[in-house]
């Protein structure tokens, strides 16, 4: 049973455009929502993360928007660059789980020059 659903599966954006990736979680209490970026042959690298008591967090070109009532959160990449081309994963940590991250299935982003 998938508890974190991610969409779209793949995304093509022009350089300078905005990339938007969405995630939704199901009927479980989570207390930490990170986004990871993964390049081929590498492990996931933490990009940005948010706690459920915050509705938005911005770090440089990356913004997380969080809607607790809808159980949805999204990643916005402003001014997308070819170097942003990678696979992005949203994740959630269950309350009291002490470290068990539940990942979405990933979004492969391609930024065209």
């Amino acid at each position, binding site marked *: 049973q998938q508890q974190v659903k991610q969409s779209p599966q793949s995304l093509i954006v022009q350089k300078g455009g905005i990339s938007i990736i969405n995630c939704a979680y199901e009927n479980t209490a989570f207390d*930490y929502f990170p986004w990871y970026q993964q390049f081929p042959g590498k*492990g996931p690298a*933490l990009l940005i993360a948010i706690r459920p008591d915050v509705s938005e967090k911005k770090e440089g070109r990356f913004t997380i928007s969080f809607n607790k009532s809808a159980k949805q959160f999204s990643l916005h990449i402003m001014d997308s660059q070819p170097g942003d081309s990678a696979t992005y994963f949203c994740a959630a940590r269950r309350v009291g789980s*002490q*470290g068990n991250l539940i*990942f979405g299935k*990933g979004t492969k982003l391609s930024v065209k020059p």
Partner: protein
Amino acid sequence: DAGVTQSPTHLIKTRGQQVTLRCSPKSGHDTVSWYQQALGQGPQFIFQYYEEEERQRGNFPDRFSGHQFPNYSSELNVNALLLGDSALYLCASTPTGANYGYTFGSGTRLTVV
């Protein structure tokens, strides 16, 4: 400052064999988690080690076992390998009590033939 290091980077094993994968956590981190990432999927939590004890376990069979040493490094052992065990195995570390900001290694690519 070295991040999470994993060895070996690639491994080919025959069905039915046993395999041991190794992980050295980031300096200052004492909690180690292992994840399995099948091709085209998000990582799935296997288990977590803290103070040389398995603290939490995901939905993986007993063929998957682990160990943590006094220097916080860790091993993942898989017995009776199946073709379906072919995946990228990721190690992630985090500091004591933080349970945030998990740092992933680049993983070990295991192929079972």
